[in-house]
């Protein structure tokens, strides 16, 4: 299987993630920031972003059940942390329709955080079906499939340092 061209190099990703981290550090200075990371696609971005947010903050993880296993979306792994009164920032790999994040927004807000916002590496706003508090965007991207930098194809390629386009005619499967 052949990957497509590099869309963002590791250096481009590092630079942009650094900018996002600095921005988040400025905005959340003196606050009780908790980065919430949905597994698994966001882990590479979240690990890099967290190290660029140069203020004290905590990390926690959750995982949603894959689509189609039950009658409705639910958490396979819930947060360990109590988020009441804390400033929650969801760290997402990509936002398109927004359906998943809409569920998280609705669910986590019931736990009374002080604030709730979203940081995403990639954004496809033209595909959005629901409005979301997306506050930090790494890159707005076209309607391509991507692998690498946490994005997978059947659980592979997450480890690639660059973000690659994956051409549909060369294969099929789940990707960003």
């Amino acid at each position, binding site marked *: 299987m052949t990957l497509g061209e590099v869309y963002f190099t590791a250096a481009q990703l590092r630079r942009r993630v650094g900018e996002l981290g600095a921005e988040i550090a400025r905005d959340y200075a003196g606050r009780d920031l908790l980065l919430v990371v949905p597994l698994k696609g966001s882990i590479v971005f979240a690990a890099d972003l967290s190290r660029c947010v140069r203020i004290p903050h905590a990390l926690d993880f959750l995982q949603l059940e894959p*689509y*189609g296993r039950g*009658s*409705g979306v639910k958490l396979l792994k819930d947060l360990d942390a109590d988020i009441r009164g804390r400033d929650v920032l969801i760290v997402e790999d990509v936002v398109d329709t927004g359906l998943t994040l809409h*569920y998280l927004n609705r669910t986590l807000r019931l736990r009374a955080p002080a604030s709730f916002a979203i940081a995403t590496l990639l954004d496809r706003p033209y595909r959005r079906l629901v409005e979301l508090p997306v506050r930090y965007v790494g890159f707005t991207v076209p309607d391509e499939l991507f692998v690498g930098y946490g994005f997978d194809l059947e659980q592979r390629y997450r480890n690639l340092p660059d973000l690659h386009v994956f051409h549909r005619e060369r294969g099929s499967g*789940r*990707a960003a």
Partner: protein
Amino acid sequence: MALETHDFQAFRGTEPPRFANRAELECAKVLDYYGLPWEYEPRTFVLETDENGRVLEAFTPDFYLPEQDLYLEVTVMKQSLVTRKNRKLRKLRARYPEVNAKLFYRRDLERLAERLSLDLDE
């Protein structure tokens, strides 16, 4: 068309939906799965009338998402064939500027299908 029956939880309409194709059914299932309230073809918009007020052209979007106040039209046509639907949408926006409507293209569905393993085949 014989499509599977489904016990929808987030459906907010009154009449049971009768989907025109598999793609509409799969869309409904996705909206339902994520708990996003939806209605099926709840309103027809008149786009054009003659001098006697007779309706010459109308448009009934497939879905309405009440929480988003958004009408959603699903098209399974190829990108090159959606000109007519795009024209209807432009007319809708011109005549009903307060209405929020969006076309969900075949490629959008294919993206969803890839991510969520949907079956879009008839």
